[in-house]
């Protein structure tokens, strides 16, 4: 649970009267929501590390791809997919 997963920002919505940026982020095709409150300068197309629903730092595309591939190898991405399904009920 301690790892942060890299993904690409697809779109940004403003919530709480425009105070808070929430992003749709693609993790190798799996879309999840994450808060951008800790990365106010992050924009659509940026790669970010996301930890439990919050983007914590920007990374470059190459780093994102490399880390994502490693997390996939060690099964962390499966966990993300599994929890995505659990969330729905």
């Amino acid at each position, binding site marked *: *649970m*301690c*790892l*942060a997963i890299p993904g690409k920002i697809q779109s940004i919505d403003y919530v*709480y009267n425009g*105070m*808070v940026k929430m992003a749709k982020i693609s993790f190798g095709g799996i879309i*999840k*929501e*994450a*808060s951008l*409150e*800790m*990365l*106010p300068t992050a924009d659509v197309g940026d790669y970010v*590390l996301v*930890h*439990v*629903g*919050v983007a*914590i*730092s920007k*990374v*470059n595309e190459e*780093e994102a791809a*490399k*880390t994502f*591939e*490693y997390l996939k*190898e*060690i099964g962390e991405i499966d*966990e*993300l997919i*599994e*929890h*995505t399904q*659990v*969330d729905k009920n």
Partner: protein
Amino acid sequence: MKYLSEYRDASVVNQYLEELDKITTRPWTIMEICGGQTHSLVKNGIIGLLPKHITMVHGPGCPVCVTPLHLIDKAVYLAEEKNVILCSYGDMLRVPGSKKSLLEAKANGADVRILYSPLEAVTLAKNNPDKQVVFFAVGFETTAPANALSVLHAQRENLKNYSILTSHVLVPPAMEALVNDDTNIVQGFLAAGHVCTIMGISEYYPIVELNKLPIVITGFEPVDLMQGIVMLIKQLENGEYKLENQYSRVVNSEGNKEAVNIINQVFEVCNRVWRGIGEIPKSGYEVKKELALYDANKKFNIQIDEAQECQDCIAGEILRGIKKPNQCPQFGKKCTPINPLGAPMVSSEGACAAYYHFTNVE
């Protein structure tokens, strides 16, 4: 992927292994702090490939593993209250409490849910106004901003039915406690990269200076870990002690100011009991007094006795690095991931589970 040979950057790791062989002249004992790093080292078989002179001890860096038994019992108690939806991260559900785990409470009918993010718990509270939603908020500094943010979101939504049961722990005070313990054998640390992504690196300078002990902030992939180990051993062999940052592509020295700001709005530093280690001063976060409405510990009158730890489990010695999982008499016998006696066998970041799944490790 089980072994290094299957890892795409195996040749780079091998180069570092060769370098390590060349530079290591004496025995050294070093500790990786983060459970994600333990998992990676064991899973890729790196531990077995290191020069004989280098002993890696596995630190207490698994939040699930250091959450006290008493708090797990509290979570189970709350889950069994009629009006409560208790949610947490997946691993937390399987940790045995003194009588049962959250998963067992769920099987008996309690409303217990696994969530990916505490922010989802706030949505759950909004959609279930007649229920109390409690998020069991465990974690290190990396997870603290998200847990804190859930409180701020609940506040913005004006929700009266959301609270968190916190078991937040802080890494630098634990490192200090470990080196100051009489039984300490650790000569250098690989510090946890993602913790520093949030907090920056300044807290580590005093630990380096006071204890004359090198620290390398390190990522969690095999190449990162190998590079971190080489940097640390170089310092030790040269009689140096410095703070170095192997993971600078992700960690900048200031950390994430917005995240720290959000933490400070919601949490204050407190003394914290670490399971298996005991109380460490100023080593945790609790919800600030003025936000007591969001603090499950204050909001609910939870009256349960302090339970005894399972006598068969030596997790305390494992978490302090004194013993390896396979030195535990119960390891793989009475204690397995399906039927864990202690928390380090539950989480994939726990040392016992890592050894169980991936050992051909001595």
